[in-house]
């Protein structure tokens, strides 16, 4: 069972990475306009016409 000694911390590390990614997203305002983000993806204003 020695494998647990590094598998458990590794799993925790991955989880922490996810947590920090979420906190970063929160801080940078990614959740400021959830409805708008869903609709903006449909608009073509970034394409050359």
């Amino acid at each position, binding site marked *: 069972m020695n494998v647990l000694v590094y598998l458990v911390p590794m799993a925790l590390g991955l989880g922490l990475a996810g947590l920090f990614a979420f906190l970063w997203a929160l801080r940078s305002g990614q959740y400021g306009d959830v409805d*708008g983000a869903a*609709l903006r993806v449909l*608009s073509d204003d970034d394409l050359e016409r």
Partner: protein
Amino acid sequence: MTEVLDLSLYAKPAGAGTLGMDLAVDGIACGACINRIESAVKKLPGIAEVRLNFTNRRLHVAWADGALAPAQIVTALEKIGYRAHPFVPLRAEEQEAAEARRLTRYLAVAGFAAMNIMLLSVSVWSGNATDITPETRDFFHWASALIALPAAAYAGQPFFKSAWRALKARTTNMDVPITIGVTLALAMSVVETAHHAQSAYFDSAIMLLFFLLIGRTLDHAMRRKTRAVAGNLAALKADIAHRFAGDELITVPVGALKPGDRVLVKPGERIAADGKVVGGASEIDESVITGETARRAVAAGAEVYAGSLNFHGALTVNVSAAGQGTLIDEIERLLDKAAGAKSRAMRLADRASRVYAPVVHATAALTAIGWLTAGASLHDALVTAIAVLIITCPCALALAIPAVQVVASGALFRAGVILNAGDAIERLADADTVVFDKTGTLTLPEPRVINAGAIAPNLLQMAARLALSSRHPLAVALSLEAANNVPFEGAIEEPGQGVHAVIDGAEARLGSPAFCGVDNVAPVDDASHIIFSHAGRVAEIAIAQALRPDAVEVVKALRALGLHLGILSGDRCAVVESVADTLGITYWQGGVTPAGKIAFIDALKAQGRRVLMVGDGLNDAPALAAAHVSLSPISAADLAQAQADAVFLGDRLQPVLDAVVTARRARRLMTENLWFAALYNAVAVPVAITGLVTPLIAALAMSGSSISVTLNALRARIRP
């Protein structure tokens, strides 16, 4: 004279050489609007940044200082069909946004910790049933402790702080047992782990925090959403005023007016600020202030109040400091008194926690003493006592009310009712008497044509279209009937008399009888009359305060719910009586002063009634504050709206009925949930006292009870 709209009041410095402004935008219907609005604004000169927040319907614009006047943005939006008004974020709203971010961070940390600890705990549970080695178990427990302790210290802050505040004020709330439970569970688990014990309760403590944080975050998010909508409505309602700057007129938002400013009030406009008339003469409609529908003639020297509607003459008004007017003074004095005398009903949750905390803590203490006298070791007795605390951990109880609150305020929001006060739902459910104001509450805030049925449809349509060319309040009311919103070309308004135009080759006139060449009109009830004549045909159009379209049905439905109904109006008795007759309300009073309204409500209170006051006028504000719970239409005077526990939207009275029905159902569900939590404890506590509880049972019981309470709360969504 060309007028400039000056919105510079709202532009705030936003970084190097740029100004920024936030606007509330009305009329956003779909995703395509985002692009239309942003590209329209981008075309203006010097725009540095433009971003529409679709969720809360607000537009942020930044531009190079001096490149454009802020009013150009509003005009550009108006041109493509959106109404916009600058918006000053309230301090409360900013604080709430910060609080929401904090809660979400707590929630994220608690969620991360709960999931990882659960992973380790499930391994231990299944290992305990099979062949886990004590070393592996200890390792898992220590890993859990490593996650749980910092996570609880961070994510538990809202509960710890609130519990501390309550204890410092020598009271108790739901957060006190939560804090004690979490702290003891964690402490015991660390001690047990150090002694290589089989079980630890890290998972229970963290899961409790996680569930509770979900409830709090949702509750908070719902409140922010309604607050944002209310903020937008307030911004879009903001009126403009024409201020004299020397001989020139500048159009400014009302917020920019200062005492001593002179403003011009044109015919058909609302008076922007309290003050004294210094020039001109006119008639004004003060129904928003006093409830009185008869117009008052004013000339130089008269005191006027913000919100009054000016009829046919232009007035110059000297703005006075707020609260200087005699009426406003009296209302503010009454308001202070009413607010001071208001006994806040104790909230259901506080009542429940006041019973719950001592019972649970006494049970835990008795369990420890019981086991000690029965000969158990101190360690075993303490472990069992703490298990009692954990199993009763008030998860279901603490979620029972916020969960219903979130769902019910969401349902009310969709029905057009915006809650101002957090405990409005509970107080709405208590109400057994509804007292309505008449003008603007039972009746529509603006006058309407009341004899449309008696006029030939094509004649009425023609008159309504012609009315579009006039700003006279009666013409504005008539123009609401127009199916086609295009004014006739060449229509000419004769100030103080009427409008005329040539339609289909014949002269059409709309205005006073004399203007239309008709000699007399027999005055019918209290309506104002205007005459329309076209090619020899004459129509007499009666305009008056009309009842809200569904007032009769709503009043009937409220009575069917067992509520006592009454009308309390500042208007003349005859007018009030006719409305009361139409609605079948026998309990009414007319010509009531603001002080009279309070006295009336106090008398009802003395009879032990819980009064729901529905009113909109400035004169209703003290009564709204004095009542057990109060509602205002969105068209209400600002001061009245600030006192109301909830505000309803639209022309219909239906939201009042919806509010009562939804609140009653929500209260029933809250009570059900509390009983469910009590029942759950009645089953679980004996098991805990006998010392048979394992961490697995604790986890199952906690999630099971929380989920069932939450599912029950969802029933508050169902429409009646």
